[in-house]
């Protein structure tokens, strides 16, 4: 099986660039998501951008813009909704997530081709990425990368010791908002390519795998980016080869996720060995 041959075709090249960029970006942001146990927040965002995409679709506007608008709205809401004493964070998130998603479903159910649209949104269409999509992804990724680089040390401090961060004068509420916005940006950039349910995999799985093997944030981030990008590449190659050789159509986005999960399981198996080797 060749890992390079599939990428002679232009549409595969675009797909490859898309997943390499997304994989690396999602891996880097994912480190903070995993360290702060925010996987649910990421998952919530993948659902709440759906009505934005639907509305943009119905209005004939850019889907990315629609997703972005709702992503930002959600990030802001999430930052303020948590903290109510009688309503746990998780419950509030679940209700927010499902009501937004339901809004999208209700809107889309009045149009024809309801199920087809829903399918594309949920599963993505990375092989149908055109130049414009790719440029949009790169722009969003660049913005997110800059924000992440600039605020990295403060975000890590807040993740490790929020009380000390506040005591030192940092506004943890604002830092949380920034992280939520970063997650929203990643989700928005990735939704068209891999679909909503699978975006969360890009964010959580490489970082969770890296956490098992790394003892420093820098190492964890590097590893997460590498795993994310590698998973994208391998997944695309495998799904292509299997489709061509065995005549078995495997959705590219799903294959990528399965590869990533396999990497995670491998990391989980290797972790105890590494710990034994590394101790003192």
């Amino acid at each position, binding site marked *: 099986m060749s890992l390079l041959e599939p990428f002679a075709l232009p549409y595969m090249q675009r797909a490859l660039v898309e997943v390499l960029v997304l994989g690396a970006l999602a891996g880097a942001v994912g480190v903070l998501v995993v*360290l702060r146990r925010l996987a649910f927040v990421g998952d919530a965002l993948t659902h709440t951008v759906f009505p934005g995409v639907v509305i943009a679709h119905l209005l004939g506007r850019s889907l990315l813009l629609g997703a972005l608008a709702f992503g930002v709205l959600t990030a802001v809401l999430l930052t303020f909704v948590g903290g109510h004493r009688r309503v746990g964070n998780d419950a509030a998130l679940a209700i927010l997530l499902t009501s937004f998603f339901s809004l999208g479903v209700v809107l889309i159910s009045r149009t024809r081709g309801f199920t087809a649209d829903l399918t594309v949104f949920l599963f993505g269409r990375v092989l149908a990425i055109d130049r414009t999509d790719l440029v949009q992804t790169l722009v969003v990724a660049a913005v997110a990368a800059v924000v992440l680089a600039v605020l990295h*040390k403060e975000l890590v401090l807040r993740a490790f010791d929020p009380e000390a961060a506040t*005591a030192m004068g940092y506004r943890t509420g604002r830092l949380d908002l920034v992280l939520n916005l970063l997650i929203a940006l990643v989700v928005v950039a990735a939704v068209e390519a891999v679909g909503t349910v699978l975006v969360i995999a890009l964010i959580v799985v490489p970082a969770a795998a890296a956490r098992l093997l790394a003892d420093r944030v820098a190492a964890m981030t590097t590893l997460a980016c590498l795993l994310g990008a590698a998973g994208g590449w391998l997944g695309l190659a495998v799904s292509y080869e299997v489709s061509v050789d065995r005549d078995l159509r495997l959705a590219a986005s799903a294959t990528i996720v399965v590869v990533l999960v396999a990497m995670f399981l491998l990391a989980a198996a290797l972790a105890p060995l590494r710990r034994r080797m590394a101790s003192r």
Partner: protein
Amino acid sequence: MEPDPLLELRRATVAYERDPVVEGVDGAVAAGQSVALIGPNGAGKSTLIRAILGLVPLTSGTIRVLGRPPQAARRQVAYVPQADTLDPEFPVSALQVVLMGRYPRVGWLRRPGAADRRLAARALAEVGLAERASSRFGTLSGGQRQRVLLARAVAQEPRLLLLDEPFNGVDALSQDLLLAALGRLRAAGAAVVMATHDLGLAHLACDEVCLLNRHQIGFGPIGTTLTPELLRATYGGQALQLRGDGVIVARP
């Protein structure tokens, strides 16, 4: 003329939804001075520390840090929490934790420089952990982690240092090193406020004491304020007990 106190409390009261948690705290701490906050569990010691940090609002009264409200003075104040609230699996080294103390001075957008690293390394050496600088924070013992958090506070170069039960569950060696580091900070002109159960250590580390049991029972020099009568009033008549090494400890 006496210099202005670094910390000043005037009838400070904190309440959560109309229930006062701690009230009527009144006193001042000058540069180089050290105050022990002493009282039973639930007395409001942690709450008072959080109020001085500006983490909880006052219901009435005032707190002034360096003449300003707490939120305005945060860069000059360092906080040493109890180490067991932190995630032991977090991928940071001891030195990286100490470096975090430099962030407010380094500022946004920039990374800690060589000077910051030297300062952090020195702070870590002061608490006797120079050779563990590259170890992951979670691999250190409880006492060692507490020392790292103190080194972080030292690295901040604060004017006021707040500690919450810094000696809880800490081994004897770590205790001595913590005390020595605190002494050096005081000699350099910082003021220290520490909540503690341990009356013996309070005697060793502090020259003033604030007795709390949801309200202030006394605030003054340790010799005249840490008396059996006031202690009984603070602990509500609960018995005091001797530790194995013969030191009197108030039963929490």
